[in-house]
């Protein structure tokens, strides 16, 4: 087995007084794809924020390659090789598509490969090349999602986390994306998928975690998880 890349231990995260994540743990090994699934409001996005540094966890620890990274500022995590696509196709609305993508290669490590990476993204989403000089605030919903995904890929991360990757994308594009994900995974990128589409995520990932009300209630090899169990865990039946 390959080394553990990221390990989250007993994470608690709050919004004010409200506990959105209540003791969730998971780990991911180098080269894996894992999926985190759960109903709306289960706390998936919050967990990702807590790991990615945009929301300080109340308690718990996060390790990246055996170094503790809990509470480390986000930009440092990015330097270490973690990247995230937040949910909802968030783009730098007043910047052009091209500048958005270029921002993806902000880390010194990624800057070197900027031109290559840009080509790859354009390859994946040809429409973005057409719109390279359009202000991204005026893109369609799906196009924004493409920018967000492309931007994360620009940083050539070791570990990337996609929150609701297929949101707003047309079926053709979704298919492409999933093919692409498997491909970049094979090229060595470790991937966390946060998805609503249970079937697709089970199919794509090596292992899965099911979250309910802020806790991980089920986990295991995706291929071994029975659909019945997942459903039960999912709805807390």
């Amino acid at each position, binding site marked *: 087995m390959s080394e553990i890349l990221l390990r989250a231990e007993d994470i608690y995260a709050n919004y004010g007084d409200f506990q959105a994540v209540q003791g969730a743990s998971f780990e991911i090994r180098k080269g894996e794809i894992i999926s985190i699934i759960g109903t709306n409001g289960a706390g998936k996005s919050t967990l990702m924020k807590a790991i*990615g*540094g*945009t929301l300080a966890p109340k308690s718990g620890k996060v390790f990246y390659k055996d170094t503790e990274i809990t509470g480390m*500022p*986000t*930009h440092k995590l*990015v*330097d270490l090789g973690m*990247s*995230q696509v*937040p949910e909802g196709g*968030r*783009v*730098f*609305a*007043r*910047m052009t598509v091209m*500048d*958005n993508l*270029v*921002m*993806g290669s*902000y*880390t010194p490590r990624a*800057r070197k490969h900027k031109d290559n990476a840009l080509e790859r993204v354009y390859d994946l989403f040809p429409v973005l090349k057409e719109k390279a000089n359009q*202000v991204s605030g005026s893109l369609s919903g799906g196009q924004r999602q493409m920018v*967000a995904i492309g*931007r*994360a890929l620009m*940083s050539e991360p070791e570990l990337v986390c996609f929150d609701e990757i297929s949101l707003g994308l047309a079926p053709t594009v979704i298919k492409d994306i999933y093919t692409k994900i498997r491909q970049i995974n094979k090229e060595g990128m470790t991937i966390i998928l946060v998805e609503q589409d249970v079937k697709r995520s089970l199919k794509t990932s090596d292992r899965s975690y099911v979250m309910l009300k802020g806790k991980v209630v089920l986990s295991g090899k995706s291929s071994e998880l029975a659909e019945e169990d997942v459903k039960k865990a999912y709805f807390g039946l």
Partner: protein
Amino acid sequence: MDALLQSLIQGVLLGGLYALIGIGMSLIFGIVKLTNLAHGDFLILASYISYSVVAATGMNPFVSLIVVIPVMFAIGYIVQNTMLNRVISKGAEPPLLVTFGISIVIQNLLLYYYTADARNLRSPIATKSIIITDGIRIPYIYLIGFLVGIIVIVALGFYFRHTYQGKAIKAAADDREVAQLMGVNIKSIYGIAMGISMTTAAIAGVLVGMIYNFYPTSGSAYLVIAFAVVVIGGMGSTYGTLAAGILFGLAQVMGAHFFGASAQLLTGYVVLLIMLIFRPQGLFQR
């Protein structure tokens, strides 16, 4: 005829200076979305710092920039990081009040240390001109102001268009959280933006100090000019600011030329309001 040409020249040159006064504000206004009511006072603060440096070392005011710029950059960085960053996400009004607080503190500290006496950074070229004809002259100091204004603005334009850091500032202003996810150090990036704004204020402050006399309260007059330039040019648009500065400067000087001295300020404002009717988001804003 000479008088008209002289006014035209003066208007354009003055406009370059106006653009320089406005550019730092426009940057912070458009990109960080912060209305810095203390911009004029920072500018005058730079004039005073330069004054002290010149008084202590006897160097040329321009040379004093090697001290003034780093000091102003640091002040901007610190002010942004210790105060403004804490309120920037709380809506438009708290930062407005904080910058106003900073404005009165600067004014009164200056008054305290430097007294209400008039000061300037007069250098021998202040009263010299290039004489073209008897009726047309180009004052060196305005010419320098104009050229420096253009250089600074072009440099800033390049910075925001072609450097990662420049883009990071814009990105951070658009979406803080996502910018962090790109690896931007959000804590320092606004500080850097403010530092750059203060750098332009430093340059403008030294020029203003060489052209005009200044007092601890002089800042407010420059704030109005900066605002006018920003509104005409469109927030955060570097070349827009340049065009706006020239338009505003020309409007004032030509207003005075055609309608008399009393019309000078008013013509400026009228041009500004007309601009706003046709381009409510500024000249160069999409």
